[in-house]
């Protein structure tokens, strides 16, 4: 998996001199040690999650379970299920909305520019870096006073708006690679903006939609800050639920760890299955097209 473009050069590079068998062995050793360190937290998560309650103690913490148990998972599922569902209901619309808006913006900013487009783009980009805290108090007050605090709408709105900048960036950088001639041809045919967008741009946009949807899905799913400010017990997404479960030390470790895995599963699965698109989103986050 993860066959991203840069990888294609590896075939030539690997023949480069200077990579002795000994050097290779040393490299592998270092990498395996690092991999083991990286896996350590994941090991603890999984191992503890599969332990029955009375085995999830300090003394046996690092050992494999003596008897594998789903007890922790069941309890975690009960505690998290409403949150998982809230997250799905919140993440899907906001990912789609940001992606659609981002695609429209990206097209215009790359290929159908208007006076001041650069300023708009810069202001959008800065929006990508703004700490949520800087808008949190007014946002919360607005939602409270508009009487919207009971539902998921405030959170959907927040994630949609804060997803626009990165989606715009990703789409714009992608559309900038579409040859001018294609668009000019459409214009000569008398196609207006909408038709050009629909007939020339959209058909080639599928991979970028995948990138932005995944990116938005992941970041909205993993968000905690907007969620604590903008939701209540009935609308808590999974991160807040998880923090409530794990935040109190009363909950046994097996259940805490199982809950942490459950809450991360959707994004992890997407990462493993669609890693290529995930990577592109990451790279775009670094303003690299």
């Amino acid at each position, binding site marked *: 998996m993860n066959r991203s473009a840069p990888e294609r050069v590896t075939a030539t590079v690997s023949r480069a001199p200077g990579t002795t068998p000994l050097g290779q062995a040393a490299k592998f050793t270092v990498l395996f040690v690092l991999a083991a360190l990286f896996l350590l937290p994941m090991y603890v998560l999984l191992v503890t999650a599969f332990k029955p309650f009375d085995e999830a103690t300090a003394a046996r913490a690092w050992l494999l379970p003596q008897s594998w148990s789903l007890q922790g998972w069941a309890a975690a599922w009960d505690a998290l299920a409403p949150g998982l569902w809230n997250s799905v209901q919140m993440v899907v619309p906001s990912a789609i909305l940001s992606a659609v808006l981002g695609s429209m913006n990206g097209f215009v900013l790359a290929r159908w520019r208007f006076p001041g487009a650069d300023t708009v783009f810069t202001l959008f980009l800065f929006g990508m870096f703004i700490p949520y805290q800087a808008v949190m108090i007014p946002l919360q007050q607005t939602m*409270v*006073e*508009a*009487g919207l605090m009971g539902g998921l709408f405030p959170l959907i709105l927040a994630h949609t708006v804060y997803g626009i900048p990165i989606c715009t960036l990703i789409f714009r950088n992608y559309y900038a690679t579409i040859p001018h001639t294609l668009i000019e041809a459409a214009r000569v045919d008398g196609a207006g903006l909408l038709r050009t967008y629909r007939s020339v741009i959209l058909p080639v946009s599928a991979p970028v939609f995948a990138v932005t949807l995944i990116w938005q899905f992941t970041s909205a799913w993993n968000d905690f800050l907007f969620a604590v400010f903008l939701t209540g*017990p009935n609308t808590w997404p999974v991160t807040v639920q998880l923090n409530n479960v794990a935040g109190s030390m009363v909950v046994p470790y097996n259940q805490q760890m199982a809950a942490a895995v459950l809450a991360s599963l959707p994004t992890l699965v997407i990462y493993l299955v669609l890693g290529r698109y995930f990577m592109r989103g990451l790279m775009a986050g670094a303003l690299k097209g």
Partner: protein
Amino acid sequence: MRARCTQLSAAVLAAALLASGCGDDGGDGTEVEVFSWWTGGGEEAGLDALIERFEQDHPGVGFVNAAVAGGSGTNAQAVLEGRLQSQDPPDSFQGHAGAELQDYIEAGYLQPLDDFFDEQGLQEAMPDQLTEQITYEGSVYSVPVNVHRSNVLWSNPGVLEEAGVEETPETLDELIGALEAVEEETDAVPMAVGAQWTVDHLLESVLLGSLGTDAYKELWEPGADWDTPEVTEALESFGQIMEHTQEESAAEDWQEASRRVSEGEAAFNIMGDWAAGYFDEIGATAGEDYDWAPSPGTDGTYMWLSDSFTLPEGAPNEDVARSWLELVSSAEGQDLFNPVKGSVPARDDTDPAAYEDSAYLSDALSEWQDDPELAGSFWHGVTVGNRWKNDVDTAVGLYLGDGDLGTLQASLHEAAQAE
């Protein structure tokens, strides 16, 4: 300016939504909306018992249980404030009796309940000191439904025996002596505490135990003098106790600290009496796994905190709301609620039989009905408002980092002067 911003962005929102059908001003007395943050455990069960009773007594009235938050309950505050500000109050809401409600009272969001107290004879039914301590500028604004005790010393009999501590410590010096004995004779943690706030909790009990009830109460008068030798002495005791706490406390919460006591990993813990409910929950046996006493130096004083219900100005169903308050203030209502919640009733004339099932509660109730001295808990919002409370919390947090009692005292003094 703020209001304008709000209208503007709210307008944009409404436009974006193409809908904004909120704010029914209702008020035909067919329902009553009560706002609380009891959403789990004994609290929720207690509330449910009250609701059931209320619906029996008032057929035809829908009870809207607007329980908004469990756990941290933070958004509940924001939602409540928003509704009060936009003149869309619930019919009643829950809050800690005392200073925590001050902001609302000053903003004019709450109706005084003096007439209600007279009507229901609550001045007689509740201890004078209690009604006195929840009176703000001559009026009461909320109806207490229960009382929790903050100054309880929990101990593990087995560990104390092993350490050769025969008597439960009655003074702070005795406590410190016992802590040293436990440190020397056993492997147990002498005094279990948890995250920062449990140290605040410990501090209030130490202050009360060292200074006495009257001097403790004076500490929470705005502008109080904390720069006294007595406070220095109290803080020294506090410092000595803190030397016997476990290193990993910051990574634990109160339940973990209490559990250490009932499981014999620790000798003592100072925590409110909700710990008794927790001990029940984890199957610990009173007298065997854990024991209790007033925290050292505070015998005869009930350091209290209380959940109470209010009547907001402009409550849409005021009459029904008053019947709700009637229920929660009645002996019957309080005896329905408290045994489940794990607290004693705010009235001192209720039926002890209702509390017989719990060794701790029946003991606590007999103390409560025995006319104890009352002192409000600062940490749980009785004596000070949020700002002062938070200043103390910060001072304690910084002390945990640098261990400097002098700085602690100076910042506590400063916090009192700032009010």
